[in-house]
């Protein structure tokens, strides 16, 4: 197999940075074996199990009423959680990346906090607040408002677990881009909103999209946190992942995997868009040094 030189990595073009062939093949086989065994095989299994009893059973499981209402709730939760965390992410990134203030490091760490909290704990905290025996429980009951074991609880838990996604993509990106371009816009008379819309947003759009995609994938796929606050009422407080669990526990394996394959498809679409966005980010960051405005702004600081 003739390999063209241009396809080689920078390390493969120089013999001093190469392993002996047998070492190379051994390491490659080990890495790819691990990949195939732990990642690829489960992915295939989802679809294979879903289709095991034929296409008809597969689609019957998908157009089942309970599946559709679960799909509705999943879309609703994501449709609320993603925009909320998007607005928050932009606000947090603006304040952290463009300004200096005390406690900035602490704030950045606190924003990441939901990632390190177990999903089960994430669900529990809302039960402690809004559950029948929680802080606001008696008040909510008196006013006939249901949060736990109802849709609002599911939305809240989803917002919590997807909280940092957009912010953590935007903060390092906006920090790296500095604030010279925005300052130039302000000095030239643009107001804050114009500056953000015409200067900042075009610069961070791919990072923003990246954060939104990951946020959405997690919002639609969350299981642990939502499971604690849901109450598992079929047709009412079931999201797709919870519906998968119920079907599986009822030994309706084909139906469970049919619904699961829908979620796996969502995961694959997420990965495709993510890879595409990443390649765009690489392209724009490669183009940056050639763009004139940046260098001009930098030169006047000398």
């Amino acid at each position, binding site marked *: 197999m003739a390999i063209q030189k241009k396809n080689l990595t920078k390390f493969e073009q120089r013999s001093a940075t190469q392993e002996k062939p047998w070492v190379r093949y051994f390491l490659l086989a080990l890495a790819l074996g691990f990949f195939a065994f732990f990642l690829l095989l489960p992915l295939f299994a989802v679809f294979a199990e879903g289709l095991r009893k034929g296409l008809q059973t597969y689609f019957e499981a998908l157009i089942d009423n309970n599946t559709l209402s679960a799909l509705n709730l999943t879309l609703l939760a994501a449709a609320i959680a993603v925009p909320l965390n998007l607005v928050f992410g932009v606000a947090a990134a603006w304040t952290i990346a463009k300004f200096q203030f005390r406690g900035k490091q602490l704030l950045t760490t606190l924003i990441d906090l939901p990632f390190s909290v177990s999903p089960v704990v994430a669900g529990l905290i809302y039960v402690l607040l809004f559950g029948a025996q929680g802080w606001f429980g008696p008040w909510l009951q008196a006013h006939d408002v249901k949060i736990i074991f109802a849709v609002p609880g599911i939305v809240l838990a989803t917002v919590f677990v997807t909280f940092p996604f957009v912010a953590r993509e935007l903060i390092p990106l906006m920090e790296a881009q500095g604030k010279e371009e925005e300052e130039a816009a302000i*000095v030239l008379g*643009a107001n804050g909103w114009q500056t953000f819309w015409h200067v900042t947003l075009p610069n961070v759009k791919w990072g923003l999209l990246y954060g939104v995609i990951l946020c959405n994938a997690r919002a639609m796929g969350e299981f642990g946190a939502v499971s604690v606050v849901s109450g598992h009422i079929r047709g009412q407080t079931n999201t797709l992942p919870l519906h998968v669990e119920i079907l599986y526990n009822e030994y309706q394996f084909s139906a469970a995997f049919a619904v699961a394959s829908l979620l796996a498809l969502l995961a694959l679409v997420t990965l495709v868009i993510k890879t595409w966005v990443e390649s765009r980010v690489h392209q724009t960051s490669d183009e940056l040094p050639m763009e004139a405005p940046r260098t001009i702004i930098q030169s006047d600081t000398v």
Partner: protein
Amino acid sequence: MSTVPPLTIPPTKARARNVLPGFRLTLGYTIFYLSLIVLIPLSAVFFKTSTMGWEAFWHTVADSRVIATYKISFGLSLLAAAINAVFGLLLAWALVRYSFVGKRIVDALVDLPFALPTAVTGITLATIYAKDGWIGQFLEPLGIKVAYTPLGILVALIFIGVPFVVRTVQPILEDIETELEEAAASLGAQRWQTFRYVLLPVLWPALLTGFALAFARAVGEYGSVIFIAGNIPMVSEITPLMIITKLEQYDYEGATAIALVMLLLSFALLLLINVLQAWSAKRIGRTS
């Protein structure tokens, strides 16, 4: 940009003044939203446990069945993170150093555990490792049981931890210049020595960060584990499941007490990860 209003240069009071608007608004909103969604709800765990008294708290969190879950959760998470550190490094190495067919697909699919809902992971792993499953049927004659044993928990924790190590090590590995290794080789180092004494010290902080991230995720993981774990008390029960069990018995205090233990561990890990990342950033700054 043709609609920009006529030029009005804002008066500058001090040289160092930040001309950008919106600081108070965005900081205010950030703190408000963070408090509303994260900080106040999390503080409920602390307040709830503070009302239950030391004796009752200790009785709950040091119960032998709960202690068993710590051992299982922490022990298996450590083991899974260690296995991921080794194979994650190997996978990152293959992705950066070697050319092979389908490399872009492999690279994209490394993030599958991030994107795949945990419940899907859970039922899939439970099915392929069951005794008549794709992998389970080959392990059954060898006397190895994976599904519904602690080994099953380990498999699930390895799956969800893969991307953490690969994605922290990969960028560092990409940034390493060939000159370093060429210098080592020209000074007579064997390939293994170059790796051990030149590359590994540079990779070490990132590797540890990836390890810590994978561990932190594994300890709290619920969805992908419970289907394959079997959930047998004292044998294959994880700590998050213990919280659920207490909740289902309407023992809110007990659930909260265990949640507090997990939260404190999360905070400690978060601190450790921050320190590691600062160290990693410093190390990279020095070598480039």
